[in-house]
């Protein structure tokens, strides 16, 4: 490895959080951005080709060395490190809404989810995955929430734009299930005759 790659490796090893490319560039004032990129590429190659227990990934707004997934179980079993708790479905839903609609207030999130989100918001705040980013206009000037860099990091995203755009989401509900055979139940029919207690499976 060249000396810049070694320096970057040392810095990345020392950091628990992803390091943005710009910050890596400040490690050596003589190195051009291209040289930094080349060195990062060399490092990544080295870990992959040479067969290492760790790898270099770009996510969470920067570069980070992480252990390879195949060793996770053994490490956890030996109690040398522990995986964070999985987030509940409710917490994930709340995060998804905040990620797309930020800055967004509590009432609006509740509206989309159909349930109150006070307790979940609190725990997401405590976990550092969301933060108060502004205050809304309306009555009481509600707090508005947004996602944090830690959110990107914990969901292996390079940046928010990596999430699919809303119009890219398939809306799997829309295209009709002709095959489902249930489609004969149109509105008019139903209005005419209330459903029999069918499907009482």
């Amino acid at each position, binding site marked *: 490895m060249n000396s810049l790659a070694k320096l970057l490796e040392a810095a990345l*090893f*020392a*950091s*628990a*959080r992803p390091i943005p490319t710009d910050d890596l560039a400040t490690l050596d004032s003589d190195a051009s951005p291209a040289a930094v990129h080349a060195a990062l590429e060399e490092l990544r190659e080295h870990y992959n080709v040479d067969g290492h227990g760790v790898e270099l990934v770009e*996510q969470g707004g920067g570069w*980070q*060395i*992480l*252990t*390879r*997934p195949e060793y*996770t179980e053994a*490490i956890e079993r030996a109690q040398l*490190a522990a*995986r964070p708790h*999985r987030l509940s*479905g*409710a917490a*994930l*839903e709340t*995060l*998804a*809404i905040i*990620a*797309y609609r930020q800055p967004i207030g509590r009432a609006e999130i509740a509206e*989309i*989810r*159909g*349930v109150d989100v006070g307790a979940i918001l609190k725990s997401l705040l405590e976990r550092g995955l969301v933060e108060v980013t502004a*205050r809304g206009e309306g009555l*009481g000037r509600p707090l508005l929430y947004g996602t944090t860099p830690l959110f990107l*990091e*914990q*969901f*292996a*995203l390079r940046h928010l734009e990596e999430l*699919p755009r*809303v119009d890219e*989401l*398939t*809306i*799997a*509900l*829309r*295209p*009709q*299930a002709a095959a*489902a055979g*249930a*489609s004969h*139940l149109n*509105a008019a029919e*139903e*209005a005419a005759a*209330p*459903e029999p*207690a*069918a*499907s009482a499976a």
Partner: protein
Amino acid sequence: MVVAGGGLMTAPQAVLPASGDYDATFIVDVGTYNGPLDLLLTLIRDERVDIDDIPIARICEQFLRKMHELALNDAAEYLEMAARLLRIKALMLLPRHEGDEAWEDPRAELVRRLLEYQQMREVVDLLERRGEDRRNRFARSWFPTITAPPQAPLALSLAELLVAVDRVLRNVRQPGLHEVVPRALDVDGAIAIVRAVLALRAQARWRDVVRADAEPWEVLSALLALLELARRNELKLTQHQPFSDVEIRRELAGEAA
């Protein structure tokens, strides 16, 4: 195509145990469903019906049954949804005229919300996959050489500080907008009036203690005063028939006490 299966619902820990030995707290607490919209969407998927033409009566019935099964009858959010479904169902049964242009599908708003929710669920699936991937990798947690990381310099201008000042000001003024000064009730004053009236005569009427043009707070004060004095046995309230005048009679026992 029907609703894509939510990864969450099929995640091992989110599924109800196959045996029937789960208790109610497990169901309500863990929440097999992340809310009424989740349940509704699952029913629509399971029943394989068209989101644009939901057979509302059938889905409503299924929804109510599921609520009952899962002991969700006390959950306000589910109750609210059940009420909404029943209302839509009723609206669907109303006769409508041929070629009625103005007719608006009562299900429209619900469908919009379901689609929005479904979109969000797709993102949840993605986050779940990515999050699981990241969870299976450890980052460095041992910092041997570098102790407390020094602080990066601050990028901060006076202009930014003043903008913050402006924000603070706008926030601070907000409460002023709601300044409502309610007229406090004056029960003590009303008690004094009632006592004064009863001191003159043993029996009085509502109109004797409340002016005809009394404001609401005065009426309320008088009412509370009468009830309070009745409680203290200083007077007795009687009304011979509904809407007739209230009779206020001095109570001898109260005087003696």
